[in-house]
C-alpha cells in the first residue's frame, strides 16, 4: 500500500471514529443540550472523511465534492448548533438568558 493510501485510510478511520463517538453521545446523553454538542461534532468526522476521499481520488469530481461537503458542514454546523441551542432554551424557559434558578455566576476574564 502506498503512503497516499495509508494517509487516506488513517483519515477515513479517524473520521469514522468521530462519527461513532457522536452517535454514541446522542444515545448516551440524557440532556437535550448535551446532545447538541455531539450533533455539532459530527461535522468534523464528515470533514475528515471528505479529506480522506480527496487524498485518495485527488482533485476530481468526487474529491472536490467530498471536500466541499465537509467544509460546508464544518462552516455551517456552529451556526446551526448555536441556533438549535438557543431555540431549545427559548422553548424551555421562554428566553435564552440564564434563569435565576440556574445560579449561573458571571466569571471574570
Amino acid at each position: 500500500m502506498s503512503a497516499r493510501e495509508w494517509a487516506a485510510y488513517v483519515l477515513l478511520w479517524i473520521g469514522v471514529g468521530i462519527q461513532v463517538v457522536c452517535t454514541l453521545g446522542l444515545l448516551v446523553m440524557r440532556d437535550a443540550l448535551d446532545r447538541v454538542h455531539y450533533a455539532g461534532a459530527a461535522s468534523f468526522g464528515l470533514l475528515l472523511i471528505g479529506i480522506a476521499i480527496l487524498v485518495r481520488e485527488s482533485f476530481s469530481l468526487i474529491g472536490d465534492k467530498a471536500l466541499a461537503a465537509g467544509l460546508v458542514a464544518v462552516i455551517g454546523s456552529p451556526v446551526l448548533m448555536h441556533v438549535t441551542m438557543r431555540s431549545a432554551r427559548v422553548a424551555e424557559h421562554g428566553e435564552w438568558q440564564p434563569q435565576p434558578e440556574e445560579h449561573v455566576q458571571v466569571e471574570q476574564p
Partner: protein
Amino acid sequence: VSSALRIAAFWSATWLVLGAFWLLLVDTLELAELLTGAVVVTIGATGSELVRANRVARVRFRMRWLLRAYRPALMVPRDLLVLAAEIVRALTGRRHPADGGLRAMRFDGGGNDPLDNGRRALVEWLGSLSPNAFVVGIDVERDLIVVHQLRRRGDPAQVMDPLDLR
C-alpha cells in the same frame, strides 16, 4: 440609478462566485450541466441579493479579527477527546448533570453599527466551532456572553471569547 447599479453589481458578483463553485463541483462543461447550473446559480444569487438588499443586519469585520480564527480551530482535537471521555464517564455512572452547563462572562455587547454586529456574529459563530462549547448568546443589555459547555473546563476568556473580542 446608483442603487440599481449597486444591486446589479452585487448580483453579478454573487452569480459569478456561485457559478465558479458549481463548475468546481460538476467538473464538466456539458450543456445540460451548464444550463442546470445557470438556473440554480440565478436562484441563489437572487435570494442572496434579496437578503442583502433588505439590510436585515449590516456587518463589517476587521481583518485582525478574522486572523484569529485559528484559535478556536486549535481547540477542536482536544474537545473531541473531551466528548469521547464524557461518554465513558456517562456509561460508567461517573458523569453528573452539574459537570456541564451554562457559563457567563462580561462581554461588551456594543450597539447596532456594522462593526458591533460583525463582532457579535463572529464570536457566536467561531465561538461555537469547538464542540465542547457553544455560544448560546450575547446579552447586549447586560453585557454578558453565555456559553454552554458539555464539560465545564478551561479559562473563561479562552473558552467564551477565543477571538479576544470582548
